[in-house]
């Protein structure tokens, strides 16, 4: 089979697993997990510097180098379009004009569900300003279509609340979103274990983005490897096309010439 490439905007990727860098014990563990995941696209958050002491404290980007990986800055923690746009502008300056961003505008601290009104507003401003926007959204197919029409380069519906590990809660909506989409659909948030990642890929998602499922596993680096394999297995199964489900059994061995007493 020809190379199975994930095309994001103008960039090509071999890995369909995108990973975050939050909640790890240290940067060394982050690097090991990223490598085990085989990820090429790595999300980071943008935050105020710790000033004063710790001037020589290492920086995440010294470990996860923008020369080696595609850095995907997020707007996590933003609750308005204005905050999200501002964060993206700072990220673009931080990363020397790199215009790929993960837009997320949250609506509520308890569920971390997206505020879709603000998300749509921010997406418009960012696309107009030349950003390549990968957008975190709900699993609503109408909103997903709207975001694609606005020019987002990838639409990233949640499978379950961020950090919940509840797995694929609504495969039917995801299927609707996938069926209509002309841009990559990446499940962002909610995956708990490798089978969840495989299910997302079997549905036809173009990729999976996760953080907590790896970072909060008992053995993060091992889980990163499991997710890597889960995504690959799910993708191959999707491409292979599963057999139809049947209510009754169908023998695998020939029915003729059976030995009888």
């Amino acid at each position, binding site marked *: 089979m020809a190379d199975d490439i994930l095309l994001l905007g103008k960039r090509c990727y071999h890995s369909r697993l995108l990973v*975050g*860098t939050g909640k790890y014990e240290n940067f060394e563990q*982050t690097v090991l997990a990223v490598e085990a995941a085989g990820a090429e696209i790595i999300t*980071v958050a943008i935050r105020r510097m710790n000033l004063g002491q710790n001037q020589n404290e290492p*920086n*995440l980007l010294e470990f996860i180098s923008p020369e080696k990986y595609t850095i995907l800055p997020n707007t*996590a923690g933003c609750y308005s379009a204005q905050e999200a746009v501002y964060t993206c502008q700072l990220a673009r*300056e*931080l990363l020397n004009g790199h215009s790929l961003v993960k837009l997320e505008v949250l609506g509520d601290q308890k569920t971390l569900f997206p505020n879709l009104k603000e998300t749509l507003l921010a997406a418009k401003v960012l696309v107009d300003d030349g950003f390549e926007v990968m957008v975190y959204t709900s699993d609503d197919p109408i909103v997903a279509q709207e975001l694609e029409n606005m020019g987002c380069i990838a639409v990233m519906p949640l499978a379950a609340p961020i950090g919940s590990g509840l797995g694929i809660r609504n495969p039917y909506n995801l299927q609707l979103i996938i069926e209509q989409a002309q841009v990559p659909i990446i499940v962002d948030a909610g995956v708990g274990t490798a089978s969840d990642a495989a299910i997302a890929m079997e549905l036809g998602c173009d990729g999976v983005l996760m953080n907590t499922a790896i970072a909060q596993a008992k053995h993060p680096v091992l889980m990163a490897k499991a997710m890597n394999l889960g995504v690959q297995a799910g993708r191959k199964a999707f491409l292979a096309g599963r057999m139809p489900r049947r209510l009754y059994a169908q023998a695998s061995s020939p029915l003729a010439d059976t030995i009888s007493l």
Partner: protein
Amino acid sequence: MTKIVQIYLNGKPVEIMEEDTIANLLIQEGLLNKRIAVALNQAVISRQQYAVTRVYDQDKLEIVTAVGGG
């Protein structure tokens, strides 16, 4: 004599020399040439502008970087 003014650096009040440049402030913080981005009163300042952008009384200066996140 140089006047001392108060600005807000990452949300905290700090005193600086009046009309000091962003470049000078970054040198004092040991942050010049680090992987950072700077905004003054919510406008992003490109690094080419650090040496010529002055900070005034009550200005809000933000210095950000990348941290772990998902």
